[in-house]
């Protein structure tokens, strides 16, 4: 049987992406009343996936080797907000918009963990345990 574990890697990347996005959204909500704060978000997982697949990185066979390449996709935050969310004090956080994004993140995280767990179960079944 051919062992294809890329689905596990994909699920773990989706979970990492969700955690990173959750952090950015929580920072936005913490700053919901800070004057001049600009709401940020990171790109959807699907979009980062197309850009960063296939990954490549230099192999390090000795401790002195310098790492380069892109082993993990990076999730750079950029400024984005809902239409008309800017307040008179220059703050662009809309709580409703952020809540929608957070729910989306939570669903993605659940999906990732579900896929991960299911794949492990299939593996376990295939080795007869």
């Amino acid at each position, binding site marked *: 049987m051919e062992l294809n574990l890329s689905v596990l890697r994909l699920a773990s990347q989706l*979970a*990492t992406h*969700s*955690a*990173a996005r*959750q*952090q950015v*959204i*929580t*920072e936005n*909500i*913490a*700053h*919901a*009343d*800070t*004057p001049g*704060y600009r709401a940020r978000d990171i790109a959807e997982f699907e979009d980062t996936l197309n850009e960063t697949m296939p990954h490549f990185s230099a192999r390090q066979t000795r401790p002195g080797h310098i790492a380069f390449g892109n082993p993990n996709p990076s999730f750079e935050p950029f400024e984005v907000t809902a239409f008309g969310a800017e307040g008179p004090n220059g703050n662009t956080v809309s*709580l409703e918009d*952020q*809540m929608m994004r*957070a729910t989306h993140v*939570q669903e993605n*995280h*659940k999906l990732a*963990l579900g896929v*991960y*767990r299911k794949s492990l179960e299939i593996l376990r079944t295939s080795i007869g345990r």
Partner: protein
Amino acid sequence: MDELMRTMAAAASGMRAQSARIRMSAENIANADTPGYQRKVVTFEEMYDRTNETRAVSTGEVKLDSSPVERQFQPNHPLADADGYLEGSNVNLMIEVADSREANRTYQANLRMFEQARDMNSALIDLLRK
């Protein structure tokens, strides 16, 4: 420290800032009838939390509202000054109530984010169980 822990730290900083704001509102309302009292305003600032590696919110200096205090002409009052005017405070109850409502709403949003990060974290840990 992983991202979910940092998330919880950011949400906690938001809750701390909002509760400071509610405390200031409560102090202002308590002193609404104190002669010469100027209402206190709490300011929010962005701060990079080095230990938790997150862009947390912090409360800056507490400032005094410099708008003029209320003055009423009441010569009979024992606290009236030489011209017969009684000084009140510059607290507007309507503003304080609206302010604490807004703080309450943002506090709840932060709390929800905290809970969500905690749920995500415990779901991850549950993966280790069979």
